[in-house]
């Protein structure tokens, strides 16, 4: 069934002169490359390719800044982060590098800025079980044996790729300034639906929520915006889901 919109597709036509010219040019390029090669191989591990500063690699952890908000564990798309209990009764993240996809969502969502990025992309493990990294191993950089004497950068000049080799070692850990903090506090968006269970007051680590029974049979709930760090635990635990984090405007 022939349709009106059908077109016959033909290949491009070359005459003999063009064919010979392209053949000769191709062989000429091959001969030229044999003599003066533009090899684009990076001789790893004797050389290393220089990665850009925001390259997503191994994740470092600073326990002092962690507020155990579990944000990293919730946001991880590959379910690679499990929170494990530490001896001081707080929960710290552990990363399973068998599942980690190095998206760094955890670092972006860390409320306290405790997770940090490095450029290390070639940690080696002996078996799958060793890829499960406990918190202690995330605090310091992993042991690196640096065999590289040079680092390589790709340069594109006049439509051609060149390799620029520089002597020296590429740094692996980048100090990134902490993100500008937008202070958020917890507020109740539907106070009439509060059932007065006081779970928020119990779960708050910083004692910002207080519940007091007054004479006359009313329960007074109060969120101290100075104490509230915006970790979001009360928002998660509220039985009626009526707490929300809001931006704080300081007057």
């Amino acid at each position: 069934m022939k349709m009106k919109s059908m077109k016959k597709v033909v290949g491009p036509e070359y005459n003999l002169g063009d064919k010979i010219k392209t053949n000769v040019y191709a062989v000429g390029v091959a001969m030229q490359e044999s003599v003066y090669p533009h090899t684009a191989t990076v001789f790893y591990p004797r050389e290393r390719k220089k990665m850009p500063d925001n390259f997503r690699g191994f994740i470092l952890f600073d326990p002092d800044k962690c507020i155990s908000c579990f944000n990293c564990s919730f946001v991880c798309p590959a379910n690679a982060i499990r929170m494990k209990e530490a001896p001081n009764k707080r929960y710290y993240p552990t990363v399973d590098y068998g599942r980690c996809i190095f998206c760094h969502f955890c670092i972006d969502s860390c409320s306290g800025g405790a997770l940090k990025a490095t450029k290390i992309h070639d940690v080696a493990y002996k078996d799958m079980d060793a890829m499960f990294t406990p918190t202690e191993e995330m605090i310091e950089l992993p042991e690196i044996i640096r065999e590289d004497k040079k680092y390589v950068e790709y340069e594109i000049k006049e439509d051609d790729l060149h390799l620029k080799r520089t002597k020296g070692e590429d740094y692996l850990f980048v100090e990134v300034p902490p993100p500008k903090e937008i202070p958020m506090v917890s507020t109740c968006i539907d106070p009439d639906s509060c059932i007065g269970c006081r779970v928020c007051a119990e779960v708050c680590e910083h004692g910002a929520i207080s519940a007091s029974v007054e004479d006359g049979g009313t329960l007074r709930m109060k969120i101290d915006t100075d104490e509230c760090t915006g970790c979001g635990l009360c928002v998660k635990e509220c039985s009626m889901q009526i707490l929300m984090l809001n931006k704080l405007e300081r007057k």
Partner: protein
Amino acid sequence: MSNQVSIPLIEPMLDSLPEIPMLQYMVAFMLWKPIFALLICPGLTVGGLSLLFFPWIERKLCGRAQWRVGPHEIVWWLGGVIQLLADSLRFLFQEVIVHKDAHRPYFLQFPFLSFMIFLLPLLFIPAGTIVAIQTPYAIQIILALVCLFPLFILGFGWASNSRFAYIGTVREAFMYFAYEIPFIIAAIAMIILYGTSDPLLMASRQSIPGIILNPVAALVFFIGAAMATGRMPFEIPDSDQELCAGPHVEYSGIAFGLIYVLCYEKGYILSALMTILFLGGGSGPAIAGLGDLSGVFWFVVKTYLVLTTLFMLRAVYPRYRLDQGLKLGWSPMLVMAIIGLAISLVVVAVRVI
């Protein structure tokens, strides 16, 4: 010409030998031309070295054309030169699996028999003045023997008794039809041009190299050689991406090693033939002190040059389809071969006159 290879460089050492009885006879035996041609050049040593060396050169050059490095890690400061040695060691230790459906005697014997077809033409190819058997019919004998190569490939493709091997074998048979006739016509054109088919006489008649006298025949012979050895753009029986390995697919271990070098052997012989027919084979400015060996040296240089060009095409060209290859063999190449024949007839007429 004397029967002994004369190398002025080592003459003094040879003169001091008669003191030791057996050594004198052994050295004289080694320097006897037929044995020298057979064992050293262009025989087993040089041929064998080219088998060890040429795959490496091919991989390195193709890597360079493709912006990568070829074999690199084995002895990396030398550039991985002994890669083929490592490969052949590995082939030696690998198990030769003969699958249930194969015709076992043919499956195992053909690779070794094909080696014989490699050795026989070496007797007739001269390197300079050194040749094993000198006969006026050398070129025809070499051509006839070279025509037997595809038979062995068909043999072990058929003995493999498997689908991919069958497809590859049939393709090899088709390609055999495609290149054989223009190839032979080009060789005959050169024989007519020189008036003789004795390679030593051919070399002496090439004051102007054959490639300038009859470039059309040279081109046809070169393309025919590319088709015969299964080099790009004609890697049709062996197409890696389509057939895995064509007729070689069922082999492993040392049998595969022998088949793998079969195409390089063929390339060596055809390049040697091309040097003799078109490039003057062995003639060149004499290097003082080497005597007969200077002919050998130039022969080796020219053969390696032809081989390198043949193998470098792999990096440049994609692969022809089977029907395009057949069409190429029968339409343009046959026509060009006949034109080459005509040109050489004209040249003979002009020179004679």
